[in-house]
């Protein structure tokens, strides 16, 4: 019964979405105040309806309502309750509903936290978001309805959630990722509204910035969570595979990173307007493209979601509509938009533009690498795969100029920066980072490992440049502490964002270079050396879990005579689906992880065992967290709150006409 109410709420949400897409938009052109004022309540009502639908689906999962085909396929009565809840977004239909919930959540948030925005702008922003929500609600309603029933013949028990997804990482990873994906819809809607009105000014950039940052933070955390989850749950110790689905989330992240920087320039200097709009349109379009790639099943991927031609076609059509429509609007209205500011070739603007171009290049590389196999096959040249070597090669080349510009950028002045004034600081930073990087690598690692040294040099370069930039804020007789206290939160946000990036770069370089991986045959009692430690296979035992059984292996790790860690690795067989899962045992540390996983039984008590030593692997995710913290600081900046506190602007005839 509850499920039916959920279904009705979902249909009502679609209808409200249609109203939201039309009424405020028409009102904004006709200058009808009451039509425009409908935007906020409609957006909030739609959120409420989708939330009801989502809650009903959760309820159906918790209550084991196997009359719903979606529940029957993705849950089981023996599943612990928290996995029942996370199973809601464990497969296609439910995760789409989660996506819509996020979209409507952003919509409602925009409607609440944008009192300072002119009514025309808010009406159009919400109407554009309404259009997107209509697209997705129609998609879910007509091609992938989670409320589809199996009546009158329904199963007694469900087929269980994919064991890979029965994990804390999966409870959190998709919601964060979707929040990021869909969050770019806000930036997209702001860009469309600005194009429609022809008013692309500093105020527009200031309104978009916190929303874009919020989306970027969610995406950053979402990707980091996914990488962390893959690392410990997939059982082979990798943290990034250049899998199409990972690429699908990485592309909007790259474009989004470019976007938050160009928005900053746009707000402060009034230049790069068209570029910024284009990035805002791309970031969301790439999110949609990612959805298409994942949902249509056209790509070979570890994230093989349901492939259904009608679904793929629907998203493809929607994608063309959104990309084509927004680009057409851009071509039509964009020409009228002029950037007023001027800047020299040597200026912070140019440096930021340089890095923007590098980020866009990286995005295009990922895009080409991801869809090239598709094109190749369609042309009739046969099936190919573009693997990690390609991406690794290109990214290790692109990152060098990127990191260099990233260090110089904050030190340079807006408008005009004579090179001579920077020479001393740059030489100091280069000298210190290169010598310290090479020295550190030589002492703690191997001299011949050039990539590790390069990674450390790049990380140190960013850190040193950032510190120099902070110190440069001390002027006159102010003490350093006072100068630091005067720095704005968004300034600190930049500092932490860049430091986080440096941490990730160091982590990536060191992990990729110094990881030791051995696959060995071991029996209880055997010992095996691993990067200076000794790993001993103590014993094997049988396991009995709530919905699985399996084998557990006890390992102890020794540094000489000192016991470093006791590790418990598992091999589980899930009862309902019969699938086998590897639960790796990890001893985590700031400077190294020890990773043990059971491979396959080799007869008797012998097992194939996977032993990894992964130095600095935590730094990759730690860096992502620090970056996100930086983003959060920026959102908290005073000027965004001031903008909110200001009285709602009156609507002038001009604004309405615009």
């Amino acid at each position: 019964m509850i499920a039916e109410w959920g279904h009705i709420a979902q249909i009502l949400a679609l209808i409200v979405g249609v109203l939201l897409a039309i009424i405020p938009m028409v009102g904004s052109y006709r200058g009808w105040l009451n039509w425009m004022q409908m935007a906020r309540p409609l957006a909030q009502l739609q959120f409420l309806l989708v939330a009801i639908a989502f809650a009903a689906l959760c309820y159906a999962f918790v209550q084991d309502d196997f009359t719903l085909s979606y529940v029957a396929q993705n849950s089981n009565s023996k599943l612990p309750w928290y996995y029942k809840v996370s199973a809601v977004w464990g497969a296609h239909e439910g995760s789409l509903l989660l996506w819509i919930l996020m979209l409507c959540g952003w919509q409602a948030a925009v409607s609440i936290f944008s009192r300072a925005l002119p009514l025309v702008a808010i009406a159009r922003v919400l109407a554009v978001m309404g259009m997107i929500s209509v697209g997705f609600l129609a998609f879910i309603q007509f091609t992938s309805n989670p409320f589809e029933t199996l009546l009158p013949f329904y199963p007694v028990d469900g087929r269980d959630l994919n064991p890979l997804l029965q994990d804390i990482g999966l409870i959190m990873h998709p919601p964060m990722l979707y929040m990021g994906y869909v969050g770019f819809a806000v930036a997209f809607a702001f860009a469309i509204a600005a194009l429609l009105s022809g008013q692309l000014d500093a105020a527009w950039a200031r309104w978009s910035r916190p929303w874009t940052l919020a989306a970027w933070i969610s995406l950053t955390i979402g990707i980091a969570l996914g990488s962390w989850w893959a690392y410990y749950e997939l059982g082979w110790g990798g943290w990034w595979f250049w899998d199409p689905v990972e690429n699908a989330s990485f592309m909007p992240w790259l474009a989004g990173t470019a976007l938050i920087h160009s928005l900053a320039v746009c707000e402060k200097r009034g230049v790069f307007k068209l570029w910024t709009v284009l990035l805002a349109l791309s970031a969301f379009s790439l999110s949609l493209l990612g959805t298409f790639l994942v949902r249509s099943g056209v790509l070979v991927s570890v994230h093989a979601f349901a492939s259904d031609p009608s679904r793929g076609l629907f998203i493809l059509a929607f994608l063309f509509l959104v990309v084509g429509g927004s680009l057409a609007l851009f071509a039509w209205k964009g020409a009228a938009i002029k950037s007023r500011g001027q800047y020299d070739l040597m200026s912070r603007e140019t440096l930021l533009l340089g890095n923007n171009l590098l980020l866009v290049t990286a995005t295009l590389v990922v895009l080409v690498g991801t869809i090239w196999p598709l094109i190749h096959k369609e042309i009739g040249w046969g099936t190919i795969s573009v693997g990690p070597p390609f991406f690794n090669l290109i990214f290790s080349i692109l990152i060098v100029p990127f990191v260099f510009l990233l260090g110089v950028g904050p030190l340079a002045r807006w408008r005009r920066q004579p090179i001579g004034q920077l020479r001393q600081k740059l030489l100091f930073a280069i000298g210190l980072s290169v010598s310290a990087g090479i020295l550190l690598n030589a002492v703690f690692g191997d001299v011949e490992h050039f990539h590790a040294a390069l990674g450390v040099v790049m990380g140190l370069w960013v850190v040193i440049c950032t510190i120099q930039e902070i110190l440069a804020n001390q002027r006159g007789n102010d003490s350093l502490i006072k100068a630091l206290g005067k720095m704005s939160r968004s300034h600190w946000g930049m500092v932490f964002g860049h430091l986080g990036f440096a941490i990730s770069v160091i982590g990536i370089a060191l992990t990729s270079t110094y990881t030791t991986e051995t696959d060995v045959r071991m029996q209880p009692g055997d010992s095996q050396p691993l990067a200076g430690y000794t790993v001993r296979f103590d014993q094997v035992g049988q396991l009995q879990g709530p919905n699985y059984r399996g084998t557990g292996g006890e390992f102890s790790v020794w540094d000489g005579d000192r016991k470093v860690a006791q590790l418990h690795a598992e091999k589980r067989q899930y009862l309902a689906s019969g699938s086998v899962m590897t639960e790796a045992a990890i001893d985590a540390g700031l400077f190294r992880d020890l990773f043990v996983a059971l491979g396959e039984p080799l007869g008797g008590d012998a097992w194939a065992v996977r032993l990894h030593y992964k130095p600095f692997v935590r730094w990759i995710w730690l860096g992502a967290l620090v970056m996100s913290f930086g983003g959060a600081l920026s959102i908290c900046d005073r000027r965004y709150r001031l903008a909110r506190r200001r009285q709602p602007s009156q609507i002038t005839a001009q604004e309405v006409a615009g």
Partner: protein
Amino acid sequence: MNPRRKKRLATTLAVLVGLGVAVGFVLFSMTQNIDLFYTPSEIINGKNETGVKPQIGQRLRIGGMVLPGSVRRDQNSLKVSFDLFDQGPLVTIEYDGILPDLFREGQGIVANGVLTGPTTIKAHEVLAKHDEEYMPPDVAEAVGKVHPNGVGNKAAEQTGGAY
């Protein structure tokens, strides 16, 4: 031309040249780094589309079904070998390492490796999909051609469920 326009022209040209170089480089490195996909019968008869046979020493990706009863393990190490088939011809895969959890006889797998003999491949990576019912579309397609109602086709329809 006034200086401003000149500067703009210079910037545009620089960007275009940079872009051209970048695109060329990307395409070049991609041709160096793509792995062509073969099925066992394509290894022997040449690719369906072009008829080109792989050369010994070539890096490639192969997909097929593991022949039941063909898995041979070394008793003292992790060395393992097994045969792959799709429409008849057999190709032997040699691998030193841990096979994935879903590796079973009779199931579809994909391996990345180097062709070391006319019908032997030394794999450095063996992949089986997370879902029991999932099969790489390429394999499903290749196998489906022989068994219109067999395993391959079922797998081609049923790729749902895995994340």
